[in-house]
């Protein structure tokens, strides 16, 4: 059974329709990517899943449970964590305090400590900068912190909104390597990206979003071959 099933959701900002019937399925253990241009509705889809936006129509099921019965702040207890667009780190707090906040929903301190070690293992840079104020980190480090903070909730499903945004090409590579590693260690990932080329290298399947609608969905191998995808997202002429 799929861990996440988004079924034909319609979402609005006031009277403006942002999503026009989105359906996305994510199987346990997968990396699924959602690609699309600016304004296509990728962030809105993630916000709908994490209950920050309430869809007017359609349903979202996580692990067989209808998510509409939960509030946004309850989702993390269900096992859904998010790395928001633009990272959303707590700029005034230190790296360590940010990571602590990530484990806010938990009270199993022994396991929290273990997960902290895991995050530091994944991002040794964060360990070095543990007591540095987060606002002074570089863009790449902030991305690591946002990812690490989400992992501190020990999620089953990780929602990532354009993690490569605004990063230098070298850093982009390492971001995707990390994504792969996190997935290998057992976390399912729904990855929103504009950088389709990189996203296809790590994902199993992909969805293409245009003006609030899914126009294509397939395995990444097939998407790579698709002419429209090549033209619009991979820059192949």
């Amino acid at each position, binding site marked *: 059974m799929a861990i996440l099933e988004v079924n034909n959701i319609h979402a609005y900002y006031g009277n403006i329709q942002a999503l026009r019937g989105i359906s996305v399925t994510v199987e346990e253990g997968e990396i699924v990517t959602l690609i699309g241009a600016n304004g296509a509705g990728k962030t809105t889809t993630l916000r709908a899943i994490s209950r920050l936006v309430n869809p007017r129509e359609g349903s979202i099921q996580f692990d067989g449970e209808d998510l509409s019965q939960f509030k946004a*702040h309850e989702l*993390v207890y269900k096992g859904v964590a998010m790395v928001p667009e633009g990272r*959303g780190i707590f*700029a005034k707090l230190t790296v360590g305090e940010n990571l602590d906040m*990530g484990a806010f929903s938990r009270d199993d301190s022994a396991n929290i400590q273990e997960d902290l070690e895991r995050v530091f293992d994944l991002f040794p840079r964060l360990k070095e900068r543990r007591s540095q104020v987060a606002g*002074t980190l570089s863009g790449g480090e902030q991305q690591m912190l946002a990812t690490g903070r989400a992992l501190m909730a020990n999620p089953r499903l990780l929602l990532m909104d354009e993690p490569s945004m605004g990063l230098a090409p070298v850093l982009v590579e390492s971001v995707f390597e990390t994504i792969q590693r996190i997935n290998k260690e057992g976390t399912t990932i729904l990855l929103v990206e504009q950088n389709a080329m990189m996203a296809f290298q790590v994902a199993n399947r992909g969805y293409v979003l245009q003006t609030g609608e899914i126009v294509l969905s397939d395995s990444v191998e097939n998407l790579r071959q698709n002419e429209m995808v090549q033209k619009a997202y991979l820059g192949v002429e």
Partner: protein
Amino acid sequence: MFKKQTIVIQDIIKLGLLAGLISLSMSVIGFIALLGERELIQNVISMGHVFLLAPPIALAYISAEKVLSQSKVKATLFGLLLGIITALPLVILVILASSFDIRQFLVNVSPELIELLTFGQGIFLGSVILLLVSGVAGLLAAGLRTLPDDFREPIITGLAWVFLFGLFSEILLGRLRSIFGRGLTKLIFSGKALNPLFTVFLFIVVAALRYWSKRRRLQAEERGESISPERQQRYQRIRIVLGVVTLLLMPLILGTYLSEVMNNVGLYILMGLGLNIVVGFAGLLDLGYVAFFAIGAYIMGILTSEGQLGLGFTFWTALPFTVIGSTLFGIILGIPVLRMRGDYLAIVTLGFGEIIRILALSDMLKPFIGGAQGVLQIPKPSIFGFDLVKPEYLYYIILIGVLLAWFISWRLRDSRLGRQWMAMREDEDVAEAMGINLVNTKLLAFATGAAFSGLSGGIFASKLTSIFPHSFNLIVSINVLSLIIVGGIGSLPGVVVGALILVGLPELLREFAEHRMLMYGALLIVMMLARPEGFWPSETIKRELHAHEELEMGSD
């Protein structure tokens, strides 16, 4: 203030004219002449002169900092030039005043002002002296900046003490006389001003002490000594005991009038601590905060009043209802604004504040809460049948309230709830995604803030013995917000410092009441430019600013 790294002579001319215009404006609105009536050091210098020369002194000092690296002599001479230029607009004013009747346009250009500007030496000689004095002031200020830190700091500390002694001379005189008798005050003061001999003595003692203590600390550091934890702990304990004793003895030291001032400061600290939770901790900009102060005051008033409206409670039995009642109102008014952020929240809460005041004024509620006539005959608190009538006694009730609110704020800040507030302040969506229930988190902030404010209002009602709707004006909310900004948002000591500066200081300088708003505004502007983080910023803010400095210096 000065982003430019080098300063040339044109800049000095501009700064001099700027300082001159500031001094000129203070003169023509009558501020300088008013201050001129107050001597700082007898027969030497008046407060008028101090404020007249403050702009060139400040600007010469700041500009010397930039020239310093080029040449010390140049920096000092620039100060001289700046001072002389400052005096030019004033000299023009003096000449104009002597040749035309400019009082038609500028009422405040009085003979006293001209006398002050020319040092009583007539137009020509006076103008020359003014140019010289101003020039020398600039020269000394710039020269001071070129001194090494070891000397500069003690000198500034000494001067600051002399200034403060002079500023508060009247109050000091009164208090010292009533505590120690006339003998001591004769040594310090002549008339209402400082005695020149004592001024020199005070300056030398303060500067020397400062110099000596700094030296000792430096030497200890050089020897690589650090204070052992036990000793640090002992110092800490001594400091706490001293603090507590001072707080307890305060009314004896201060006397009736100053205790009353402290009581007002205390009520504002209480409100400030509450708003600090709402704005500083939780980041919810509430401009209608006076509403809860009013609700607390009205609950206390109606429950205890001995008039027709009253229900016959005592202060103590009414107190829990006051706090619980305002807390409930905090939650009730919090519910409709749960989904609002930033400016929208500010505007709506502003409306709430006004609605409460207008309701208190309304005829509809008049049978219950007295309308414009307010609630009268509210008894003062009493303990074991002993009425706490004097401000010296009420002080202790307010002190307990403040300490309690302080303790609660302090514990909450480091608690789980404190972290929830912090996360919500930084980013509501992220906080929610992290598992924080925004509804509870917000309502708890509004409730705690309202509880402190309601307590303050309750004591206020009982202290004044009557309350009227117009006491609960928008200006109260603005004052409370200003004091936490001046003190440093989110900082507990900052609330106290802010309240002392914005509520206490104006009471002590009542003779300048006419210019209170001017000083208030000037203080806020200068502060926002020079010290935007507040006088006593919270650790987080300090750390953040510090981090930025680090980043600028060693940007990798």
